[in-house]
């Protein structure tokens, strides 16, 4: 009997190791270990053994069963592993082929920059306000301390809808200062981006329609120090940390004192180069303390409240940011342009 088991073992292990797939392994298991299997057949003959031999043979038979089961399992794992390897090989793709794309659309580059600026001011407690583009000359000029007879009010410079020059297309976002002061509760912290219109023929740097961002703060105790601190922070956010700024006197009818803010040319570090036209500085925005006369004209007591305001051109900012060389591209909307940003 012992020999029979030995034979069975040799035959079974060889057959298992030679089997080529998982199905035949299962057949092996039935053949050798099943209820009607060969090992069972041998064990049936146990009755013929002496009581002494039975336990010994029983133990041997159990060992054999375990060994065969183990071998089947090992073989099964090896076969599965090999099958997976083959599958992986077959499934291998050329990863350099292009991906399947569902391209995102693109925000207009100028609005990219505008959104960046909006986020900066939102972070500083500002609101964004919107107002009319078809505007009363009163708001666009008079209330901003721009008298009748000022050259910017001429029909050669401003678009008008009425013969008496009462209604125009706003030439600046500054009338939003007046709207805000007249209608909003104090204190005010706001920016007002929007379209403005001037009678300029289209060329590489001019357009009859362009965009400005107005900003204004009205509160108690606001000074030129605040103006400088806020705008320095804004400029740092736009142009990066360590940007060197310079404030220099300028003139706007609705702010006094007025200033312009320059940043040191990033290209030449202030030495002077073609980018900054040799000046070493690049003009970024105009600003100033809201003229007390303008405050008073909007019903705000300049002895209690003060404020500062600024205005900047969006096109020029975007053109600088993306090195766009011709303003016309901004309004041309060629998809080959739009998809670059």
């Amino acid at each position, binding site marked *: 009997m012992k020999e029979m088991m030995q034979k069975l073992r040799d035959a079974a292990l060889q057959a298992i190791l030679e089997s080529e797939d998982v199905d035949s392994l299962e057949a092996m298991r039935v053949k050798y270990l099943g209820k009607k299997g060969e090992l069972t057949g041998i064990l049936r003959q146990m009755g013929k053994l002496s009581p002494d031999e039975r336990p010994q043979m029983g133990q041997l038979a159990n060992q054999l069963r375990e060994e065969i089961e183990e071998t089947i399992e090992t073989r099964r794992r090896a076969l599965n592993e090999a099958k997976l390897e083959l599958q992986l090989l077959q499934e291998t793709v050329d990863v350099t082929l292009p991906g399947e794309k*569902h*391209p*995102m*659309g*693109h*925000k*207009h580059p*100028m609005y990219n920059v505008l*959104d960046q600026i909006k986020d900066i*001011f*939102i972070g*500083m*407690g500002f*609101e964004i306000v919107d107002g*009319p*583009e*078809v*505007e009363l000359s009163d708001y666009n000029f008079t209330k901003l301390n721009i008298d009748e007879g000022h*050259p910017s009010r001429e*029909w*050669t410079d401003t*678009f*008008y*809808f*009425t013969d008496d020059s*009462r209604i125009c297309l706003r030439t600046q976002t500054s009338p939003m200062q007046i709207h805000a002061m007249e209608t909003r509760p104090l204190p005010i*912290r706001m920016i007002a981006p929007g379209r403005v*219109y001037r*009678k300029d023929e289209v060329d590489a740097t001019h357009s009859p*329609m362009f965009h400005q961002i107005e900003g204004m703060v009205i*509160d108690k*105790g*606001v*000074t*030129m*120090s*605040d103006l400088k*601190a806020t705008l320095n922070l804004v400029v740092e956010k736009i142009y990066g940390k360590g940007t060197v700024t*310079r*404030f*220099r*006197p300028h*003139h706007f009818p609705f702010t*006094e*004192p*007025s200033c312009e803010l320059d940043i040191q040319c990033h290209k030449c570090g202030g030495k002077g180069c073609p980018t900054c036209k*040799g*000046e070493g500085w690049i003009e970024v925005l105009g600003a100033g*303390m809201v*003229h*007390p*006369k303008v405050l008073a004209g909007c019903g705000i007591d300049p002895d209690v409240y003060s404020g500062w305001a600024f205005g900047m051109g969006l096109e020029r900012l975007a053109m600088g940011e993306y090195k766009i060389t011709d303003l016309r591209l*901004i*309004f041309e*909307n*060629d*998809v*080959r342009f*739009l*998809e670059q940003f």
Partner: protein
Amino acid sequence: MNLSRKWLNEFVDLPLAEYDDRSFAEAMTVSGSKVEVTEDLSAHLKNVVVGRVLSMEHHPDSDHMWVLQLDVGRDAPVQIVTGAWNVHEGDLVPVALDGALLPTGAEIRSGSLRGVRSDGMLCSLKELNLTTHDYAYAAIRAAAILGDYHPLDKNRPSIPASIAAGDKIFGPVLAAEVTRIRPAEAGWELVLDLGAESVKALTPCANLHLCDLVAYDTRQGKVCELSDLHAEQKEFPHCIEDGIFILHEDVRPGDDIAAMIGCDDHVVEFEITPNRPDCLCMIGLAREAAVTFNKELKLHTPVVQAKAGGDINALASVVVEEPTLCRRYTARMVKNVKIAPSPAWMRERIRNAGMRPINNLVDITNYVMMEYGQPMHAFDFSCVKGGEIHVRCARPDETIQTLDGTGRTLTENMLCICDTEKPVGVAGVMGGANSEIVGDTAMVLFESANFDGVSIRRTATALGMRTDASSRYEKGLDPENTYAAVQRACELVELLGCGEVVEGVIDVYPAGRRETVLRLEPEKINALLGTDLDVPTMTAILRRLGFTVEGETVHVPSWRGDVEHYSDLAEEVARFYGYNEIPTRFTGAISTCGGFTPEQLCERRIGEICRGLGLDEIITYSFISPGYYDKINLPADSPLRDSLRILNPLGEDTSIMRTTILPSMLEILTRNYNYRNREARLYEIGRTYHKRPDGLADEPKTVSLGAYGPEMNFFVMKGWVEELLEGLGTAKPRFIREASNPSYHPGRCATVWIGEKCLGVLGQIHPRVMRNYSVDAEFYCAQLSFGALFEAQGGVPVFKPLPKYPAVTRDIAVICDLAVPVGEMEESILAAGGERLIDCAVFDVYTGTHIVQGRKSVAFSLTMRDENQTLTDEHAEEIVANVLKALKEKYGAEMR
């Protein structure tokens, strides 16, 4: 405004060596006078020196070149070959030596000309960037030299090649040889050999030398020039009024030419803001510079001798008829005027300030304008009828010929300077040709007046002639300045010896001086600036700027019309305390919380969704052409045609405010199509403009989508709209066929509805519209009201528990009339299915084989679920049966 640093030194001691361009520009800019650019005039003129012609010989290998030996102040003479014929031994000439740089950009190097070494070049006026206005005496006249004659027809020369002294050329004109030549007062004294005899002759022509054969008119006693011979230029190619600049200056060989012509100067170009016309002159900028650099300002009070005596009031009178347009009119008179070039120093300053010297009198007016900022005018007084100046507005149809030679028709709002009959000048803009200073002018009236800026600007604009004078006047000048300016002009007349000044000044100043007096309120100034400056600091700055401060009272100087409020004083203080010295700190606590409004957030969200769908954002002009309404097929009576019209547009194309955003999108799609871009998918959130009764506009926003390309069709566009609405969390939209929108394809257009509210329209653009745009493709667009989208936007989503029981699906196919809209069938199915029918999706619409013509097969997939138990087959069949029943009743649809 151009400022000569050399001239500036007359008023403020700021030598170039000590204050270089960079530090000067930086300091002036941060104190408020912005420097645009500084030009070193000598940068383009280097190594050009004065040379004296020691000797000259004909070039051995050329019939028109000379070889010169020149003394240029060095140990040895320099040899230079020149083709110029106007040089003579002993002349002083500008010599560009080896390595010289000329304003033309030319660099001069030693070399050889036809085998003869030449160590430089002699310069003409032009090569030094000068004209005869700068050096009138350097004008050149040239005689026709017979040796230079090139006949027009070689076979029939007018002058035989064999011609010799004494031969007749025509009439009284004979050939003559120069046998002696000597410089004279106004030209050269010649001895000419006429064959039989010798004659003496004087000529202004500068191109003659010994042995030259010339044409001599015996009757006029004149050496002939081109015109005397009726000859063309090409017959005498070297007989040209160009040549070397022969110097008649107090200079010596070796002297630097740059210094001689005033190019040893740096010119600073300032951008002066319109509120500071006082800075448009030397004195104004000198004042700013003096305060900026803390230096003394050296001003000078003009002194006039008035040696002619008499009294201007006996000779002339001035009547100001428009005292609001002419606040002051000051005049003085000069007799025995001698017109001549002005001296070198004056020409230099005029040139370096960017103007051209003309003659002493004109130069004086320009000089005073640049020094004092006060435009001046000089009339030939003999041309002023009646000896009266009337400052009045033009009469209807009055005309004048201005100094530039143009005839101009004046209108009644134009201020004019007139005599008793006619205008002799357009006030503040330009003088009239009828009273122009000419060579024989003997009596001159200097006008130094103050005119209303707005009036001058409008006149100048209307006449299309913005002049130096008008551009100053239009900014509003200081009436106090007219007197000093006219005094200075007369002082210069006496200094230059160009006339005798008549005693007395006419000074019409109807309203007199208006002084601005302000209160010095240091606490207010500090409150504006965020500083803590004391009164003495403020006072010191103001005083240095010319303000008078007495206690709390500040008298504003007359030239500072821009200062009228304490905030203006604050700016003055800040400018010189230093904007960049003002502390940079937040003084208040931020007391607002800011943030986007719901509308702004919605707009952002719409943008995000559109980009997620693959659409690119565009920005289009708000104004369009009225013709665009025709292009999009808008009916003639459409209310959308009632646009706000710009009365003074740049052109028809940008003349009305759009009432619909569609043409803007079509314009951009067309442009991309014409650029041969394969596809375009675009969106814009833009405003339209609608008239309001008060004349202003409602300016609602529209979300505009537009696309073309191989993958586009109606359902792609509809899908975008659906995605957009879903992204905004709106209720389920309904799409209703729209066959009457004139811009859209009647069979491929729908309106979008949520509840009873129409959000907008979408579809394929009408082929007729496409024809109008000359595009052979299909455009798909949608226009949705932003306001309606915002209103329809869903709120915060509320969580619904996930289903516990599985869903059951059944597919059904029915046959119905072709015309039945599937959307309506869907609605009916959902209504008939009850609450356990949770979804109905169309998955096939079929016509053709096996389907009767005029009918179609529509297949739906129904999804059913019971929230409380597993749905049984019986229940599912029951729902399907209800659905089929409803479809049959409503549409006559039969199960397929």
